[in-house]
């Protein structure tokens, strides 16, 4: 009897232990390595983004609340004073204004000319591949090269533009000193540089237009202009939106061409947001001011990017 009892107990014990084991076993995941791999794979990117994007953003906000001395150390806490002085400074407001003029000018021209190039190149005639290569070629031009090409073209005394003007007895324009002309010259150079990219993207949208729609409108006897406005444009509107927003964002961040062509002048006419930041921080040593300007720039870019995301969300499943 006792033996049997013991046996039973032992059995019970065994069952208990087994169930404990099974509970433990269940906790072990078949993907136990995943945490390690997630860290290994995502870690580097996350670390880099934190170190070079998130941390500096917070630091920039922090710096914008202080005054900085000649050596770039933040010394006196001033709260939002830097922002107040920025937003009441006529220079900064003028800079905001000229940035908007520049951004709008660049975007409108880029879209318009990009559409013109893309629609012209989309017709399959002999040699169209050759023309497409030409139209996209400015994508391979870097900032410095573009600046040098255009600086020479716009050079008031020896530039080709004024030489041609002189030849035809047209008025000689002072491209580098007239504020309006300088703005135009910077816009033209930027648009020229942007065109390759805009053309490439818009052209691929034209390429993927359904042929059947064209055939149908042709049957219905719709004119080309009407068709372009009411069939083509709506069909490529997602691409159009993409190109516009990218161009907007990129032109808000313009720096290189301005630094090379006008250095913000004349009379601050082309002193855009990023050039202001550079000028204040790395020429004047006024880090607090530059930081406040950086924060304002970030807000503008963030809003635009957010609009882009919202739009993408409809198109792309995350």
């Amino acid at each position, binding site marked *: 009897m006792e033996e049997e009892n013991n046996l039973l107990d032992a059995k019970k014990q065994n069952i208990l232990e087994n169930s404990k084991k099974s509970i433990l076993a269940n906790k072990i995941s078949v993907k136990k390595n995943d945490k390690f791999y997630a860290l290994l794979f995502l870690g*580097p990117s996350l670390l880099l983004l934190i170190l070079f994007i998130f941390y500096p953003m917070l630091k920039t906000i922090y710096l914008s609340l202080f005054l900085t001395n000649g050596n770039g150390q933040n010394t006196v806490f001033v709260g939002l004073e830097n922002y107040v002085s920025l937003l009441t400074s006529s220079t900064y407001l003028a800079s905001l204004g000229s940035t908007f003029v520049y951004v709008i000018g660049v975007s409108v021209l880029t879209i318009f000319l990009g559409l013109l190039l893309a629609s012209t190149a989309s*017709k399959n005639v002999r040699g169209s591949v050759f023309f497409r290569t030409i139209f996209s070629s400015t994508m391979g031009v870097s900032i410095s090269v573009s600046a040098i090409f255009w600086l020479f073209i716009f050079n008031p005394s020896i530039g080709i533009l004024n030489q041609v003007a002189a030849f035809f007895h047209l008025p000689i324009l002072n491209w580098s000193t007239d504020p309006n002309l300088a703005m135009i010259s910077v816009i033209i150079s930027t648009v020229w540089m942007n065109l390759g990219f805009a053309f490439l993207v818009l052209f691929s949208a034209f390429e993927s237009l359904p042929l059947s729609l064209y055939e149908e409108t042709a049957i219905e006897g719709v004119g080309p202009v009407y068709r372009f406005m009411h069939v083509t444009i709506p069909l490529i509107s997602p691409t159009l939106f993409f190109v516009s927003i990218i161009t907007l964002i990129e032109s808000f961040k313009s720096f290189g061409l301005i630094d090379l062509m006008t250095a913000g002048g004349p009379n601050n006419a082309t002193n855009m947001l990023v050039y202001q930041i550079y000028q204040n921080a790395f020429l004047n040593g006024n880090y607090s001011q530059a930081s406040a300007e950086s924060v304002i720039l970030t807000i503008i870019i963030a809003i635009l990017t957010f609009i882009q995301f919202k739009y993408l969300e409809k198109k792309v499943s995350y």
Partner: protein
Amino acid sequence: MENLNQWTGSKKTWHYLLLIILSLLILGPFIIGLWTSLLPTADISSGKLFIDNISLDNYWAALTQTPIIRYLFNSLFISILTMICQVFFCSLAAYAFVFIDFKYRNFYFYLVLSTMMLPFEAEVIPNFQTIKSLGLLNSYLGMVIPFMTSAFGIFMLRQSFMQMPYELKEAADVEGLSHWQFYLKGALPYSKLSIYTLAAYSFLSAWNQYLWPLLTTFSDDYRPVQVGLRELQSQETFNNWGMIQASAAIIVIPTLIVLYFGQHYFKSGLNEGAVK
């Protein structure tokens, strides 16, 4: 796209005329730049542009008297390094977001995505300090490190990885491939096209870097072409226009080659990554 048989001859002529005019507008700056690069500087600065004593002297001068070759090498080195790093780190992160199950995955993804809202141009001050304290001012690494990964690249490759049938991953699991093995032998070759696109894109954007190298390079040993050309331009107070145009021509050629071969990937990749 349109039935060309219906096109009358004059319509075709007008179309070609338009194509040629647009081509000239696009090519104009190239042509003017290349032409002046063949002229003696003295003639350029006295305004004589339409002359016939052209020569390659300016090119010879640019190659021998300026560090332009060094600049080109620096740019090439930085761009290739950035390209390799970006493809590597972005694809790893994108892989994690698609094929690895971990806590708060979506949170991390949105975190990464949100960096696209923060412009690098607005963060140069603290980043300069960081690079300085890492002792990386005036070095290749200093110019590459902040751009070794990008939210855009991660996003694009994630989209591309998500288009892979998940069964491939399961098959690989059953076959006993580790994440690393599947990443190398499955995910990367499957998404080749997107990888090439990111490579081409990151190469060009690294090549076009301007502000950051301007701030962090202090000697010609490390200056890339963009900044190098700026230095050349400001050093030649006389504005040795011929030589500067020649330098620009020397620099524009490699990118045009990359563009010519990479065109297809830019187009498809940009559409994949952003529009569709």
